[in-house]
């Protein structure tokens, strides 16, 4: 029998398509997580009150922020799970090497995150309707911002990038622990160490890390920061897993 030549992209594509069929649980989990997020958003909402001596304003704010945060956690968790042994064994049943395994995982995660971001953004409508139906309010204000289409897309992309950042973090953490179980203990140490490195006299380190992303108001710079982080994280994960033994 003659050897079959292979192209990496071909195998990655096949694995990716296989994963779309195999990992439906990921999307079911997304659904459950987002439904929980929607219900929590309606129940709690962000609220505040404001008072002058004419009247007291009782405010309930609805937004899809919580759904997005939950989707980020979902992405983080799923990325970790995808690095685990049981998922990996599924992969290496058929043709695969570490690189194609990682690349197809990443393409799959990217797809899942795009879907997650899209559904998270779409949940705004549901939240708004349920909010309207459930809360007995005097003033229902839906139009708070005059958002330019461009800004809206920037925001949607930023949402996706946040979810991707969470997924990358999860994937890297997962790969580290797969690579060596002892790295689980090392992880908090690294975080605390990083905390010291980036702390300033005004803020502890982790606040600075959060600020690095969350307080970046320039879309271009945020895009750059997020993409570079994602690339570094994915690259590290690939490097780590390249020495990983499977099955």
């Amino acid at each position, binding site marked *: *029998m*003659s*050897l*079959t*030549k*292979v192209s*990496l992209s071909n*195998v990655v594509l*096949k694995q990716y*398509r*296989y994963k779309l*069929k*195999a*990992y*439906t*649980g990921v999307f079911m989990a997304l659904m459950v997580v987002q439904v929980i997020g929607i219900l929590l958003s309606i129940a709690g909402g962000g609220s505040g009150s404001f008072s002058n001596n004419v009247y007291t304003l009782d405010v309930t704010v609805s937004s899809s922020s919580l759904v997005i945060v939950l989707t980020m956690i979902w992405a983080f968790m799923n990325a970790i799970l995808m690095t685990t042994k*049981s998922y990996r*064994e*599924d992969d*290496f*049943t*058929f*043709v*695969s*090497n*570490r*690189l*194609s395994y990682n690349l197809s995982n990443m393409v799959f995660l990217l797809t899942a995150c795009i879907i997650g971001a899209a559904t998270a953004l779409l949940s705004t409508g549901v939240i708004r309707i349920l909010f309207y139906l459930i809360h007995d309010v005097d003033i229902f204000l839906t139009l708070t911002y005059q958002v330019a289409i461009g800004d809206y897309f920037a925001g949607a992309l930023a949402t996706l990038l946040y979810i991707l950042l969470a997924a990358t973090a999860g994937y890297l953490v997962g790969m580290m622990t797969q690579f060596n179980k002892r790295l689980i203990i090392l992880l908090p140490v690294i975080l605390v160490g990083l905390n010291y490195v980036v702390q300033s006299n005004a803020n502890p380190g982790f606040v600075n890390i959060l600020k690095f992303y969350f307080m970046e108001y320039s879309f271009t710079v945020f895009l750059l920061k997020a993409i570079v982080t994602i690339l570094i994280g994915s690259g590290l994960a690939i490097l780590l897993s*390249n*020495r990983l*033994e*499977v*099955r």
Partner: protein
Amino acid sequence: MKVIECEGLVKTYGSINALDRITFSIEENTITGLIGRNGAGKTTLLKVIAGFWRETEGRVKVFERSPFNNLEVSMNSIFVDDMMSFTYTLNLKEVLTEAQAFYPNWDAKLAEGLLEYFNFNPRLVHQSLSKGKRSTFNMIVGLAAKCPLTIFDEPTTGMDAAVRKDFYRALLKDYLFSPRTIIISSHHLDEMEDILEDILLVDEGKKVLQLPVDEFKEYAVTLSGKTAIVMQILEDKDVIYKRNIDLDSCSVVVRNNFSHESVKRLGINVSPVTPSDLCVYLTNQAKGGIDDVFNQSKSV
């Protein structure tokens, strides 16, 4: 052409050498039986060959390539064991369709035919199958993939005798139809020795023997007779295994590299050793075997 070449291959876990400087090669289009006791390093060796595990030392070449993390090796080989896992979202038939996408030589007709022959409900999920059925399904995947290198690691786990027989028959027929390099690891040599071409016997991570089955069968003979007489002629012979039958008679397994006539003339019975017995004798860690344990406990 040599499909697999190992030279001084070492695989270490902590301080244990699962493979200990093993050197051998496997020719193209042969069926090799990888024989050894539990923990002899069979699975480790196969996983290194399949590219799942990385060798610690030495050289391993599959299709003249280093197998670890090699996509081409992965594409041209399939590793079948009872731990094979398939996604639970796809039923058996769908899994076969997916597998077809991965393997260019995939024989869909064979896969479907075997699925039907072994009475599988194609709408079931792999996880819901019994152990034996699962092994059978894995075997179907392994055969239908028609990979130039097909590795079966203990493929018959859980199969009943009839299915095992069918499996060996199917394997042989498929091999005749599309010759390829097949490695089967097992500790049930007697069941499959007929379809094998070569036997690779490993023990404690080392190669003990690699021979064609026929030569393996003639590798050793049992000499049995009066202990005094048998002992007399053992001088120039390689003793593999010794067993006392009773006080004054014994049977000894020796290398078959002498003329039987002279021995027979002394009234010693010369009989062949079955390959599976020979494997046991060759890989006995404690010389003497299980009997000694009982003898010792009696003497205490």
